[in-house]
């Protein structure tokens, strides 16, 4: 009798198992073999171009939209929707777009699609994360809702942009996510649109609800796209991985076609694992640590000597070899070798060489002005895998200068950034910058101009400001780059941040695909990938 009851429970349990198991779909691939899979991460915000500032969402948006220009693999801007972008004074820009292009819902892409999208992105009360990209346009305000008066629609295929000051690199910026056009459907209900965005790019969402949160997003080729990025494959499946390790396991098993990034644990072996399918190239990533001048000992004459001493006390190449298995390049300036205008021979760049004798001498000189007290600390966020190199840098400094030094871990990235932006951090801290668009200016102006958004060390130099202004108003790109190089010569003297190294993009691809190339921004050029 009682045994029957047990049987009943067993039966009930079995049914639950069966029921929950039937909830699963049968197949995993739709059967379409021409789909390229690539690793990504769950977008942190709804898929709205002006509100996406991180790689997870950026990878998707860049593939489903076509802006005025796109960047080819080496970072050169190529007209996508733009017919021409011209200016005589670098202040008023005349933009003509190609006609006959359509969003994937059939709506025509016109000058209004751009102008309205930009106005939406810039409007104060819309609180878009990328709104600062529009702050050079006349009428922009960080304080209240204002009309972006600098934008004027001339005809359905032409509009003008009036800036508040001359910006020679303005056309270079236009390939960035923030400047994409939006169809009318977006303005009707931005929140719903962000779930199922409608673009005009080489790919489109496979269907309504193609974004499966925390799992993947499926894109298919957009046959109506007429630009230079026509897809050579049938579509993309962007799989969201929690860790790079999981993605790498899939890559090794040919379960993932293209992988951007290599997990730390596999950095030593991935070239053996993948052979000629391994990717290792320079990236538009600059890493440094910033020493705010408000800290004791780090301002004025004494500060300048100590900064130069610290910089020369670090054996960058050795740290790169030991900690990163050689997958970084020692910094020679404040930008990146993949950017046009980069130079490894700027005046004063020898301050970035490892020179222990000189470092000791400079440090002793500084001690004559005011004796060194306390410990040299270097703060970093503990959730980002920075401990290894920070400890190595600390040891390098400690051994060369014979002072107390230690790393200072702050548990979470959010906490770390809060302390930096509120100026409550009491130690030098790690900083990094990945370019939004391939221009020297993007590495200099946002970080070292007086009062700029990412000027974490609150650096201010009238000379640098003047040279940035000179670069902005330059008539040609070469002229502009010269000015930014001159600005860096001053930065190399002042060292508001100590340049460490340039990032490298690592990655790889499976045996099932070919023609995989990684772009200037470390993102694979997906439309060219061919399934074998």
């Amino acid at each position, binding site marked *: 009798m009682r045994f029957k009851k047990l049987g009943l*429970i067993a039966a009930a349990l079995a049914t639950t198992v069966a029921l929950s198991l039937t909830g*699963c779909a049968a197949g995993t691939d739709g059967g379409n073999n021409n789909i390229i899979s690539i690793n990504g991460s769950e977008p942190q915000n709804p898929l709205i171009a002006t509100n996406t500032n991180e790689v997870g969402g950026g990878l998707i948006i860049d593939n489903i939209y076509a802006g005025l220009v796109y960047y080819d693999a080496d970072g050169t801007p190529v007209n996508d929707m733009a017919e021409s972008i011209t200016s005589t004074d670098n202040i008023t820009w005349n933009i003509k777009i190609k006609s006959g292009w359509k969003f994937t819902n059939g709506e025509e892409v016109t000058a209004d699609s751009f102008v309205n999208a930009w106005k939406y992105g810039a409007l104060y*009360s819309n609180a878009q*994360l990328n709104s600062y990209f529009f702050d050079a346009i006349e009428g922009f305000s960080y304080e209240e809702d204002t009309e972006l008066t600098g934008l004027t629609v001339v005809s359905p295929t032409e509009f003008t942009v009036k800036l508040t000051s001359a910006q020679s690199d303005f056309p270079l910026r236009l390939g960035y996510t923030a400047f994409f056009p939006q169809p009318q459907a977006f303005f009707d209900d931005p929140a719903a649109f962000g779930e199922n965005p409608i673009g005009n790019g080489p790919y489109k969402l496979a269907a309504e609800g193609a974004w499966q949160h925390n799992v993947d997003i499926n894109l298919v080729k957009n046959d109506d796209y007429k630009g230079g990025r026509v897809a050579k494959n049938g579509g993309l499946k962007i799989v969201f991985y*929690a860790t790079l390790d999981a993605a790498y396991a899939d890559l090794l*098993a040919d379960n993932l076609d293209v992988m951007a990034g290599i997990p730390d644990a596999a950095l030593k072996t991935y070239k053996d694992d993948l052979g000629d399918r391994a990717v290792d190239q320079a990236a538009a990533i600059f890493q440094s640590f910033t020493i705010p001048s408000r800290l004791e000992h780090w301002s004025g004459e004494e500060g300048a000597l100590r900064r130069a001493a610290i910089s020369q006390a670090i054996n960058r190449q050795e740290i790169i070899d030991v900690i990163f298995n050689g997958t970084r390049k020692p910094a020679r300036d404040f930008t990146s070798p993949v950017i046009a205008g980069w130079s490894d021979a700027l005046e004063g760049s020898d301050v970035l060489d490892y020179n222990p004798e000189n470092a000791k001498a400079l440090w002793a000189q500084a001690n004559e002005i005011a004796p060194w007290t306390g410990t040299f600390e270097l703060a970093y966020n503990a959730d980002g895998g920075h401990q290894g190199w920070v400890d190595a840098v600390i040891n390098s400094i400690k051994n060369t200068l014979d002072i107390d030094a230690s790393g200072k871990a702050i548990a979470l990235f959010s906490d770390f*950034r809060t302390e930096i932006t509120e100026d409550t951090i009491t130690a030098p801290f790690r900083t990094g910058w990945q370019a939004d668009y391939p221009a020297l200016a993007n590495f200099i102006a946002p970080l070292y101009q007086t009062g700029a958004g*990412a*000027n974490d060390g609150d650096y201010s130099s009238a000379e640098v400001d003047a040279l940035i202004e000179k670069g902005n108003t330059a008539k040609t790109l070469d002229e502009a780059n010269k000015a930014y190089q001159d600005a860096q010569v001053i930065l190399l003297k002042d060292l508001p941040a100590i340049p460490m190294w340039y990032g490298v993009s690592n990655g790889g691809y499976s045996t099932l695909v070919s023609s995989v190339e990684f772009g200037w921004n470390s993102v694979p050029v997906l439309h060219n990938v061919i399934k074998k």
Partner: protein
Amino acid sequence: MVGYIFKRVLQALPVFFGTTLLIYFMVFAMPGDPIVAMFGDRGVNQAVYEQLRAQYHLDQPFLVQYFYYITGIFQGDFGTSFSGQPVGDVLAATFPVTIRLALMAVTIEMLVGIGIGLFAGLRKGKLFDNSSLVMSLLLISTPVFVIAFVFQFVFAIKLGWAKPTVSGAAGFTELLLPAVVLSTLAVAYIVRLTRSSVIETSGQDFVRTAYGKGLTRQRVVRVHILRNSLIPVVTYLSIDFGVLLVGATVTEGIFNVPGVGRTLYQAIIRGEGPTVVSFVTVMVLIYLAVNLITDLLYAVLDPRIRYGK
């Protein structure tokens, strides 16, 4: 019996409010500002920052935030994640996956663990018993992520028997490998537990009586020894089931299972208050339910236990 269940459910109410309040406070007290983190290494745009804080009620005092959250829950609204997805949808998407995985792991634990344990207990001191001891010690002393990586490398990458990671569908066959990994540790414990319990029960008077009545060995083992030995095992299994349901963060991360553990981990890293609290709340409820069911199961297994008159 019904009265007993009612009483237990009533008891769950203060636990529910207590845990949500506590967890909400812990997320609130977490260092760092999630909105600052949204700007990444870029500078913070003050205007956008203020508005986002207001949008997620982060500018309000703690109790006001909690009030917003709890009133929302009673209207069936668990809040919204930063990516604009209702947290209710996130719960609905992840829990079935984890429940499926946990059920599979527990089933494996039951079949393999109790089977081996019973066999070893009945053949005390023999070769099978000794080798099961060695096996369990080996499994207990190996961390689960080591087993996970080894299994993934050998069975998925080298032999190709399974896919290294789980797709969005998270089907039965895909989940088999992570389920086996998850079950290894518990299998080892259950083998030891069942074995000693069986040995103890075998020496009881009622077992001798049963043999004395002339029952076959098979029937004595099945009806008298096994059933009476299962109580500690059921306790362990239910606790383990609870642990598995609230997410095996490490294993889910390694096999990229779109389940509770992985999602919760990411929510904590991003400081998404509503997501974290909702997940933990549901976990607490599940834990309470599993505990209640376990207590009821005791009555089924042992006739001497009776609930509520």
